[in-house]
């Protein structure tokens, strides 16, 4: 393992780790804002009570999650300079701008207003207080936009040209400059995909946690008997409190699914144009051909974990689908990995110069095994959410007095199992798009391939032990924090919500205030 491999591992680990928390923050801040809005504007005291309790319940989990997302985000920003200084020199003129805009437009907004939301209850009038959580939701979503714009420049550089004197990419007014970077078609496709992925994470989280409690209260109510006072309280908790939240989470998942599919399709079509190698290896599509099928299962040849395409055997395939994915034409011709590799060797050279001035042989094929399976994991894991959504809808069917809740242990167990799946799908998506870009850190734009940089040309000049030190340190600290985070999220999720009580005199509910025991 040299410094380059270690730096890549570090970027992979810290990025995937960071992106455990980020989608939950992006999605949950929006869903909590919606719940808070329903709490503020509900006319019916039962609904007002339910949404207030739910806002508080999920708000406390949002707070636990928010901090660690920000903390790990600082590492991301510093890492470009620490481990990838030559990359930072090459793209800084372009790449720094969206990062700075993210700080100015999004980070200040979300951080300042989260403080206002947590501590402002009772200090601010209700509607202003409600606006603060909407500001948080806006801030988290905006931050996704700017960072996707930055990443999209690495996938498909626009708005910049290469300055031959300095050898650097520079923002170019004649190419549209920063506006081109921010309206990069790659970013416009990726942004809805990432944000809806975050909604899916939060929707599954909401549905999973609320389903678990709904089943618990349902069964407690049946155990105590619906005619007893306490049994009735549990019955109402299941029916009026957790059932609406389950359904609300399902709605979020459905909206997210539509956006995910549409934006994912748009992304795939762009990718076939902009990064044909990435899509070819996602399909383990070795040789250029027409009528390309979609591969479901492939087994590797002698080098199953490498870039070598020659030994793979496609076991299960769906005809024409990949050609349709790429161009909507079932007979479209798609280039294969090996042909593309030969073509790139001719176009960009058999060798490239590393940061020490040595000529190194270049392979233009990303790791086939990782790209193929991460692409399938990304899509396959999302199926869990589909099953969860349909099952939850069925389990809570009916309206008004006939509104059902369920006591099914199997459903309860599945709902909890389905929570981590969208997280893993998000991680798989990032692994796919970042590994599939290799060997490039800035992938050449097919229309103007001058702005390009290989990963090995972007790394800092560090001895291996130094990068290893930070890799070990981050991994250890991150590991400990992940355990604590999980325990706290679990505790907060299991805590549930105190049963609603009615005042015997006035028959009013004891709706809590939105204060947080910080």
């Amino acid at each position, binding site marked *: 393992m040299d410094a380059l491999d270690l730096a890549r591992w570090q970027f992979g680990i810290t990025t995937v780790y960071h992106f455990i928390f980020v989608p939950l923050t992006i999605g949950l801040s929006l869903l909590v804002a919606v719940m808070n809005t329903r709490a503020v504007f509900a006319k019916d005291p039962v609904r007002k009570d339910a949404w207030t309790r739910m806002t508080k319940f999920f708000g406390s989990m949002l707070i636990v999650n928010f901090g660690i997302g920000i903390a790990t985000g600082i590492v991301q920003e510093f890492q470009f300079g620490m481990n990838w200084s030559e990359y930072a020199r090459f793209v800084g003129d372009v790449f720094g701008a969206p990062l700075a805009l993210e700080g100015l437009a999004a980070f200040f*907004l979300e951080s*300042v207003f989260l403080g206002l939301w947590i501590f402002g209850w009772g200090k601010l009038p209700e*509607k*202003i207080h409600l606006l603060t959580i909407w500001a948080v939701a806006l801030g988290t979503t905006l931050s996704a936009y700017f960072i996707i714009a930055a990443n999209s420049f690495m996938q498909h550089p626009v708005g910049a040209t290469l300055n031959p004197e300095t050898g650097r990419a520079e923002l170019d007014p004649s190419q549209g400059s920063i506006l081109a970077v921010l309206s990069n078609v790659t970013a416009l496709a990726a942004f809805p995909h990432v944000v809806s992925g975050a909604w899916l994470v939060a929707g599954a989280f909401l549905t999973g946690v609320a389903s678990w409690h709904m089943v618990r209260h349902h069964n407690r109510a049946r155990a105590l008997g619906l005619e007893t006072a306490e049994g009735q309280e549990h019955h109402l908790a299941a029916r009026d409190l957790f059932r609406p939240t389950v359904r609300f989470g399902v709605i979020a998942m459905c909206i997210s699914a539509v956006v995910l599919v549409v934006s994912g399709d748009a992304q795939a079509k762009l990718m076939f144009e902009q990064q044909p190698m990435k899509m070819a290896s996602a399909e383990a599509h070795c040789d250029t051909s027409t009528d390309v099928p979609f591969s479901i299962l492939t087994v590797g040849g002698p080098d199953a974990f490498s870039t070598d395409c020659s030994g793979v055997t496609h076991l299960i395939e769906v005809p024409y689908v990949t050609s349709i994915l790429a161009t909507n034409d079932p007979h479209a011709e798609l280039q294969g990995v090996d042909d593309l590799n030969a073509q790139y060797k001719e176009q960009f050279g058999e060798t490239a110069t590393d940061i020490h001035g040595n000529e190194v042989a270049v392979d233009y094929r990303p790791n086939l095994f990782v790209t193929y399976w991460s692409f399938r994991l990304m899509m396959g894991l999302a199926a869990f959410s589909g099953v969860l959504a349909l099952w939850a809808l069925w389990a809570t069917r009916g309206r008004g007095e006939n509104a059902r809740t369920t006591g099914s242990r199997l459903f309860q167990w599945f709902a909890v199992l389905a929570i981590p799946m969208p997280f893993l799908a998000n991680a798989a998506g990032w692994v796919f798009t970042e590994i599939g870009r290799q060997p490039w850190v800035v992938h050449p734009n097919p229309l103007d391939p001058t702005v390009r940089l290989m990963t090995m040309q972007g790394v*800092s000049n560090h001895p291996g032990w130094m990068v290893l030190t930070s890799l070990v340190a981050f991994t250890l600290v991150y590991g400990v924090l992940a355990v604590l985070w999980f325990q706290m999220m679990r505790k907060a999720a299991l805590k549930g919500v105190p049963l609603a009580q009615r005042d015997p005199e006035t028959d009013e509910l004891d709706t809590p205030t939105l204060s947080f025991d910080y």
Partner: protein
Amino acid sequence: MEPLLEATWLQALWFALIAVFFLGYFVLEGFDFGVQITVGALWRRGSGTRGTLLKTIGPVWEGNEVWLITGGALLFAAFPEWYATLFSGFYLALLGLLLVLIVRVCAFKWRDKVDDPRWRTAWDAVHVLGGIAPPLLWGVAFSNIVAGVAIDENRWVTSSLLDLLNPFALLGGAVFVLLFWLHGLLYLALKLEQPLRGRVRRLAGIVVWPTIAAGAAFLLWYQLAYSHAAWTWAPLVLAALALIAVVPLNRTGREGLAFAATTAAIAGAVATLFGGLFPYVLPAVNAPANSLTVANASSTEHTLTVMLIALAVLLPIVLAYTIWTYRVFRHRISDDDSPAPGSQLLESAKQGYRNAFEQR
């Protein structure tokens, strides 16, 4: 070849803006560090008091930290070469800083999430570390930036971590810790009710003396040995006078003015350091030709212009809601939940709407 010392006005302005962002970070997050150090100083008073101290910065620390995140990103955008050389060159120091900043955030967020005294005590210990280590490392880092490091022709720093821990830098680290601690104590004096208010003021009366001594020694050493400008004597004297003024202001209970004085001292110190660094951003002590300067480390004029427009639009908005937040939470920490000034905003907005659209 001679390093380019001819900076354009746009590059000079951006150098000043980077200084302003670090100033914002040090002034705002500085008192957060100081409050966390005070948690250690008043450790024996138990976790209830420690919690009260932390409550004074609870609503605002996170927004304060964004000054660093955004400042770092602006540094990347405006001076990519500076960012790349600095962040790769100060690798191990920054690694330590990052690790502390991460656990510090968790200490804020998680301290009160588990009702167990051992849990809280453990996070309070992290708070103390999170209050002392970052100023120390920032002090070391900035001392080395202004004094210069060894840089080769590829613009890679060749100084090791041990080279960075030289006497001048260690003194700088001590000054940052003391100055932020004093700053935090005076913030606490503004935010607490008696009897804690009296305690922190007495503590401030003690801490101010070593701060004056170390601060004067550090800035004089810098001005005489490393500064590239004579005009920085002015902010240096301002910083010294402001620190000395803390003594009577704190004694007579002029808490607001005392806090303003440490703010002025931090501003004076930042102006002295950055002013004396210009037109360099990272001097090379081994070969002056390898130095990074405002002129040779910056982005293109076009990028600087674009970022300046973005900053001109966005920064006033950020400042507006930040100031509003401090107004909302301007009251001393007690159990009184009185509505804050924000409550009149909605009323006046409604009134304005009615005045504009009412059918007369």
